[in-house]
């Protein structure tokens, strides 16, 4: 075959892969958004920057560890399937973690292990710290810092809550929104600004 033809075929293949990877991310997330089940995860934000993707807030969740039987050994970065349940307050709870994908339930989430501590005195249970797959919430450059300040204010008042609204389907997740007192954080910031101005 002509050298030029090979190069052009290679280029077409490369271009398709370059399009396919971001497109597949879009499609899988759209699917979760359409038909996933919603969970609320209680959280608190802090505000760092990524050089390519801009400002985001890191969410620290109240639920970030589970107990698993001592017979399971966990290593850092390993995939863990978390059994989910909804508490009486309406927020998500992590019940336990398994190595295999649960077959009989759809209420589970795929996540990574941060570290695990075996505790002999706790009925043979290991405490596993989890890295949830939705800890970044991207925000407009000018608003990320305000979001953090707003949240700090909220935290002093126990009557107010902040949480992440997450859609989950077959273990895959999509962080849909971050809310303070049931209002999306972008809206919450705007409301706060107009309030401050009117004061």
């Amino acid at each position, binding site marked *: 075959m002509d050298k030029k033809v090979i190069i*052009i075929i290679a280029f077409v293949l*490369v*271009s398709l892969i370059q*399009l396919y990877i971001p497109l597949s991310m879009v499609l899988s997330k759209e699917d979760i958004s359409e038909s996933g089940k919603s969970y609320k995860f209680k959280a608190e934000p802090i505000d760092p920057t990524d*050089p*390519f993707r801009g400002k985001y807030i890191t969410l620290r969740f109240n639920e970030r560890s589970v107990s698993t039987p001592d017979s399971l050994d966990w290593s850092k970065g390993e995939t863990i399937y978390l059994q989910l349940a909804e508490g009486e307050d309406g927020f998500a709870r992590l019940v336990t973690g398994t190595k295999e994908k649960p077959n009989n339930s759809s209420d589970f989430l795929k996540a990574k292990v941060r570290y695990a501590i075996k505790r002999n005195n706790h009925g043979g249970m290991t405490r596993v710290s989890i890295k949830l797959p*939705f800890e970044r919430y*991207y925000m*407009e450059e000018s608003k990320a810092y305000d979001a953090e300040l707003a949240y700090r204010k909220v935290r002093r008042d126990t009557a107010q809550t902040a949480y992440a609204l997450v859609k989950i389907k077959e273990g895959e997740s999509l962080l849909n929104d971050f809310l303070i007192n049931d209002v999306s954080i972008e809206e919450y910031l705007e409301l706060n600004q107009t309030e401050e101005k009117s004061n």
Partner: protein
Amino acid sequence: MSLQKDIGELINAEVISKETANKIREYYAAKSKNSGNRLFMIFGVLGAILVGLGIISIIAHNWDQLSRTVKTVLAFLPLITGQLIGAFTLFKKSENRTWAEASAVFIFFAVGASMAMVSQVYNIDGDLSSFLLTWMLLCFPLMYVFKSSMVSLLYLCGINYYVCQHHYWSFNNPTSYIFWGLLAIELPFYFFLLKKRASSNFSSFHHWLIPLSIIIPLATLTDSAEFLTLIAYMSFFGLLYMIGCLDFFRQGKIRNNGYLVLGSTGTISLLMALSYEWFWEDLIEYDHIFENLLFSTGFLITILFTLSALILLANGWRKKKIKDVKPIEFVFILFPIIYIIGSYSLVAIWLVNLLILGIGILTIREGAKLNHLGILNYGLMIITILIINRYFDSNLSFVFRGVLFILVGAGFFVTNSWMLKKRKKNG
């Protein structure tokens, strides 16, 4: 060109024939066209880099006003535009280096921009290192498809950024062997450059970035055997120096010979860092665990570097006289011995300091012999830095230190002016 101005005079004086004169004129005309092309290419590549980075920055702002659908469409717009320009280049401008370089660079950044935008829209988690890894993997074929040297350089920067982010700047990440795979898939392109575009500026940049791409992540391989880290580095600097001494690299300018400069300055810097007493005091107290050392990755690569450097050293010696052998060539052989002595005794501090002093003096001698001001001053610099180091950590009296500084300062004046005088006399 002064020669072009003188052509008329040369013909009149019958020094050259009219035919030769025409050939000379044609040669310079072709040469100036070539340099025009090169300038055009530099601006083309710079333009593509700036536009690409601009798009990424604008995307990083994360526009709240735009809906999710609009953002998703915008994420693919630069990428598709870039790919269309790329296709046009391959079909219509395949011989034009400027088009090839600029469109490849533009696609490179468009891929990053599109991934960044999608991550933002769907709040996709994943740290910076996994973002960089996917980006680089998606873009490495561009250097082969477009034969783009600039994408190759960007790729090398990207994978080094990845390894730093993954290993050095993140807490407790496991050793990433992926990096070495990423480097390996770039090497065929580097060999292509060496073969086909040996004299281009892009190749010179590669001569710097390729060795740096091993120096930077080398420490990740010796994690399990910290004891070996410094020995591995020293033998690698030795190897770099020996590669830099090969005829292929020696023929060019020193500033294009990253191997030689990195090998030499790396060796000296490491020796300087180890010329302090505290390092060796710590080393003696440190509990060395020699178990499993023989089978660790660190040990194997140290042996590999040392053997390769020895082969090049032996090969180089066959061609030159004993008096032309430079002391810095031995450092990688002497260093492991000093290091092992240093694990038990503080004599090593003296050995390292004497070694640096010896290299300094012999470098000055070499500079004087070759009538090379750069080498001469490099030698003087080595001795000056050694003295400054000792100024701070030794208990020498202030008068003695003062006298030392004055002597070295005077040394700079005397040797430089002596050499300049010698040059004037000879010239």
